[in-house]
């Protein structure tokens, strides 16, 4: 499998630039809906390509943080810079996998149509996707194992297949920095493994992937960097050092269900070499 576009243009430019400026620099970000703050004073800096997990309870503001970083919700205060530039000027280098519920799956488009949307950014105004884009989109579908379903209307896919369609669309964007909101939500073990393999592959190409995640047991296995969020940023850094019982307790409070898995999760971390 190869994540390169059919016409590769200076593929390592991204990583060279990244050495100079931080890949992502979130500074003092506060966001409120109807004057109720849902993110408070969040700071997050990524300097090296990594797989970053973002965890926190429901309503912690994980999706909001991603939307704030992408410029989809207004900031009350603070700033976000990507590769040292404003988000608006670096859009071509950003890939996005939204939460699955964010679109109408009855919409009359096929799987291939949706993946092709990933190429719209580089196509620019009025130009339609041609044979080159279609070949590339099919390659992306191959990577997520959906090539056989390219003609299906998206509403006729299972939840896991819909998730992989979004993933293929993001890969089609050929970004350097990916934001993924719960790409593992509602997928079976095999699909989860396939998605993870893809994320690891992206990182190996020097890309950075931010992933909102809910399954604490797999956190230490999947992510080398971790951010724990509950309105405030509780902790962020190497998973090994911030994935502690104390931080989890601060993030999730005293919720019993979570504390049950918490022991297993930290145990799992001990077991991984």
């Amino acid at each position: 499998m190869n994540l390169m576009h059919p016409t590769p243009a200076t593929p390592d430019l991204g990583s060279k630039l990244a050495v100079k400026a931080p890949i992502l620099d979130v500074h003092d970000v506060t966001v409120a809906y109807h004057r109720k703050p849902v993110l408070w004073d969040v700071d997050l800096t990524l300097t090296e390509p990594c797989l970053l997990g973002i965890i926190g309870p429901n309503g912690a503001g994980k999706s909001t943080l991603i939307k704030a970083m992408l410029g989809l919700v207004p900031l009350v205060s603070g700033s976000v810079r990507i590769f040292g530039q404003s988000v608006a000027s670096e859009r071509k280098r950003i890939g996005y996998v939204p939460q699955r519920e964010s679109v109408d799956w009855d919409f009359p488009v096929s799987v291939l149509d949706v993946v092709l949307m990933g190429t719209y950014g580089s196509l620019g105004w009025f130009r339609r996707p041609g044979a080159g884009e279609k070949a590339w989109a099919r390659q992306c579908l191959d990577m997520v194992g959906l090539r056989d379903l390219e003609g299906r209307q998206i509403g006729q896919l299972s939840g896991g297949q819909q998730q992989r369609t979004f993933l293929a669309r993001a890969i089609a964007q050929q970004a350097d920095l990916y934001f993924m909101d719960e790409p593992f939500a509602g997928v079976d073990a095999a699909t989860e493994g396939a998605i993870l393999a893809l994320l690891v592959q992206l990182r190996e190409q020097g890309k950075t992937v931010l992933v909102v995640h809910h399954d604490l047991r797999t956190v230490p296995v999947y992510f080398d960097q971790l951010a724990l969020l509950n309105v405030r940023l509780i902790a962020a850094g190497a998973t090994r050092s911030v994935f502690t019982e104390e931080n989890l307790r601060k993030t999730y409070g005293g919720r019993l269900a979570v504390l049950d898995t918490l022991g297993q999760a930290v145990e799992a971390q001990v077991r991984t070499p």
Partner: protein
Amino acid sequence: MSEWLTYNSLIVLQGVTLLGACSGVIGCFAVLRRRSLVGDALAHSSLPGVCLAFLLVGEKHFWAMLLGAFLAGLIGLGIMAALKRWTRIKEDASIAIILSTFFGAGVVLRSLIQQMPLSGRSGLDSFIFGQTAGMIEEDVHLITALSAGTLAIVALCYKEFKLVAFDPEFAQVQGWPARLLDFALMLLLLGAVVIGLPAVGILLMAAMLIIPAAAARFWTRRLAWMLLISAGIGMASGIVGTYLSATQGVATGPCIILVAAGLFLLSLGFAPKRGVIAQQLARRRDRFRLETPLGAGEEPAP
């Protein structure tokens, strides 16, 4: 039939054909963006604009009445946006408020006009029920040109509109001016409403947007085909409806909508795969198909 097919009626047919295509195409986007009721509100809120234009410049200036309808619709849109932004009134409630208030104001203005010693008040009524009979060549040319322009814009921005209608946030992340494109779709919706008013009428215009789009969905699961089929249904309704109206002496709007409704029923019943009949047949077939492999293949666990 031959006596009906005069030069003037041919021109009218050309106009309703294009406006049918225009409402069919724009109606698809409205339905997909869940804005069919907004179309209804825009149609109703145009009445005071039409009446004011009539009072200001008289019936002869057809374009002025269209402009009045457009401006009134724009004000209606603005108020809806303001209500959404500054109050907690839900969208469906604000649509109902705009629709009834503007239409009420329009009806009052219309009764005032009817008490005045003015000529050509029937031109005003044709906007309410839709009537092509009184149209002159220039009127139809204006409708034709506006419809063609609208269709050309959709053809040009098809990719952008498709993206924004499906996933506006993704569009924004990619750097498209998603809000602007969405507003453009809204303006095109208003445009399609205004273009259709003289032939279809205020009361039935929303149906002209919704019915062809809803019917088209029975035939296809691809946006491009949906737009084409919906346009086709809009055109057919326009042509047949206008013919029936002219030959039977009934208002044009209801005729067009009844034809569209007939085509909708045909689609609902007979469309392959998604039509009711095809679905029933498929269900029967599948029942036999499903039973065989399951029964033959594996024994159910005890």
